[in-house]
């Protein structure tokens, strides 16, 4: 007999780690919406941002800066790195490939992934670097209702709050700013947007920068949880099924998809995995995405695709 308390605990833990997937998925959605590029490199961007942050932090602290100054400077440095990366990608990869097929663009982002992973580790090192930006202890909730209470990790809560802030600021950015509006215009039809004088290369730079900053945010939470290390890029791959489930073009879809994947894989692991050998977290998200693809190819929140000739 499985206790209700245990189910709730697994569910909450799953939802919270789902938020982490959502954070990465958001970066994908931003780029896909604005340029139709399916950015395989988002995980590598998380790694790069994380390494830039943690290494500059270590250096600053060693030089005797106060923790707060160090954090602010470190984040500034990492953001600058992401800006440079965004500019380089726009200038040398995505820009020249404009109007190419989606497949070509996708493969080019695989190339970008490798460059970023290689360069990031060459410059910043390739060990596991612990990052402590957020508290990592736990709360015990509802101890009066369930024996032992429900274990909730504070970091997960922080992650959820940050994701919420991120989504809200993205929504404001898209709806209220001139750049945001131009961005939506480019997303609809980039030739038409160009013809009314929207500078497309600037817009794409902004999009890649935004995705880079989202990656930085994801890196702070993930880095605190796991340490900044290469395997982050594999976890970031989980954002792909999240996107498929949520729909490629939908910001709420990225969030809901992340929650579904996070909760689903934890529940499946605990209640199903023990029967078939364990470790099904490894593939659960992908197979779930495959099932969604077969039933509803555009995802839960995606727009239906109408084909024309």
């Amino acid at each position, binding site marked *: 007999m499985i206790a209700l308390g245990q189910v709730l605990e697994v569910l909450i833990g799953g939802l919270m780690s789902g938020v982490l997937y959502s954070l990465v998925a958001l970066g994908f959605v931003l780029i896909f919406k604005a340029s139709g590029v*399916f950015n395989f490199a988002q995980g590598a961007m998380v790694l790069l941002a994380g390494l830039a942050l943690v290494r500059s932090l270590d250096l600053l602290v060693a030089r005797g800066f106060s923790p707060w100054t160090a954090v602010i400077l470190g984040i500034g440095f990492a953001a600058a790195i992401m800006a440079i990366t965004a500019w380089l990608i726009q200038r*040398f*990869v995505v820009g*020249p*490939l404009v109007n*190419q*097929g*989606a*497949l*070509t663009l*996708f*493969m*080019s982002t*695989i*190339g*970008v*992934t*490798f*460059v*970023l*992973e*290689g*360069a990031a*580790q*060459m410059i910043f090192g*390739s060990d596991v670097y612990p990052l402590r930006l957020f508290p990592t202890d736990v709360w015990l909730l509802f101890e009066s209702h369930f024996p032992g209470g429900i274990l909730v990790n504070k970091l997960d809560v922080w992650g959820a709050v940050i994701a919420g802030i991120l989504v809200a600021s993205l929504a404001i950015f898209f709806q209220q700013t001139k750049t945001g509006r131009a961005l939506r215009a480019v997303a609809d039809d980039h030739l038409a947007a160009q013809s009314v004088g929207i500078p497309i290369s600037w817009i794409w730079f902004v999009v890649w920068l935004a995705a880079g900053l989202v990656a930085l945010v994801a890196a702070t939470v993930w880095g605190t949880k796991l340490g900044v290390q290469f395997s982050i890029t594999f976890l970031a*791959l989980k954002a*792909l*099924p999240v*996107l*498929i489930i949520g729909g*490629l073009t939908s910001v709420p879809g990225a969030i809901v998809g992340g929650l579904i994947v996070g909760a689903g894989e934890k529940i499946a692991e605990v209640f199903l995995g023990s029967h*078939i*050998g*364990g*470790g*099904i977290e*490894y*593939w659960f998200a*992908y*197979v779930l*995405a*495959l099932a969604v*693809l*077969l039933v509803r*190819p555009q995802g839960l929140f995606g727009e239906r695709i109408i*084909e024309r*000739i």
Partner: protein
Amino acid sequence: MLYREAGQFKTTYAEDMAIFPIRQDRIALAILLGIAFIGVPLLADFDIWPFGSDYLLRAILLPFLILALAAIGVNILVGYCGQITLGSGAFMAIGAYSAYKFGTGVHIPLAWLGFAISIPPLPVPTSILLGGLMAAIAGILFGIPSLRIKGLYLAVATLAAQFFFDWVFLRVPWFTNYAPSGSVNAPALNFFGLHVGTPIERYLLCLIFVTVFAVLAKNLVRGNLGRQWMAIRDMDIAAELIGIRPLYAKLTAFAVSSFIIGVAGALWAFVYLGSWEPLAFSIDRSLQLLFMVIIGGLGSIMGSFVGAAFILILPIMLNLIPTQLGVPLSTETITHLEFIIFGSLICYLLIKEPHGFARLISIGKEKLRLWPFPY
């Protein structure tokens, strides 16, 4: 002036449709095959440089041949049919583990039905081909989503295959014959009574497989089926309107591609590795194969060879050249450099020459044909 086709008139369509319609190309190929089939074994037999040690055969030529074969498989799917795959490593694994099971005997206890399926250990060649067949079946199953979904979505479907099979071979002990370490050993390599053991024998075995499959694949891609694949790749809607069935075209591409990849996987495990773990077929392998195809040339059988050679030789060069210059690099730096070079090369080629090195070679031939005139 050596490379001219002037005076070589084709009087039948059959001649015009030959693989290498130009005589000089045929001669070059004959020489290449002569070196590969006769020259290399002779040199190795007499221990002549650079075949004095087994290093070149075992560490370069053998993996080159097998990965080139796998790259041909990937190229059929990605380069010819335009269906992206990030799961080719999994299909190599399916080929390897199926061949292993067939080679060591299959026993499926179906207790609830009251009987068991038992197949005695099969000969190695049969096992390898059956490994390819199993991969083809899995390829068809994972190709079915391609009928409803396109491009990027398919990338995720193939990732699902990759991660799912990684897990299956790691966690389902039946596939490894309950080996406690999870690592398995290939059966003795008996081919029709001949024992394949020494590096040169292994090399020749792989060379035969690769040559045969390359010719068969080339025949397919320049025939009716190949045109159907390319039509689906270039414009699937128009293809359907001229009577090409997407179902048939895509699933045959998945089947043929997976079959070849599966055979390559079985060879990789049996002939190259000898004993292996699921890690040998991870997503890194899938990406490596994809890179070979992009670098060598999408939609080119020859390009698969060029790409495989490049990807295998670059790390060795990165190791060798700085050492010769007196500034040896650490293994870590080499790995990172490799990442950067491969990544930027991919981007560069996709922008400048989507048909990869193969296209550069044919441009070179075009220039040579006109030489010494520029046009």
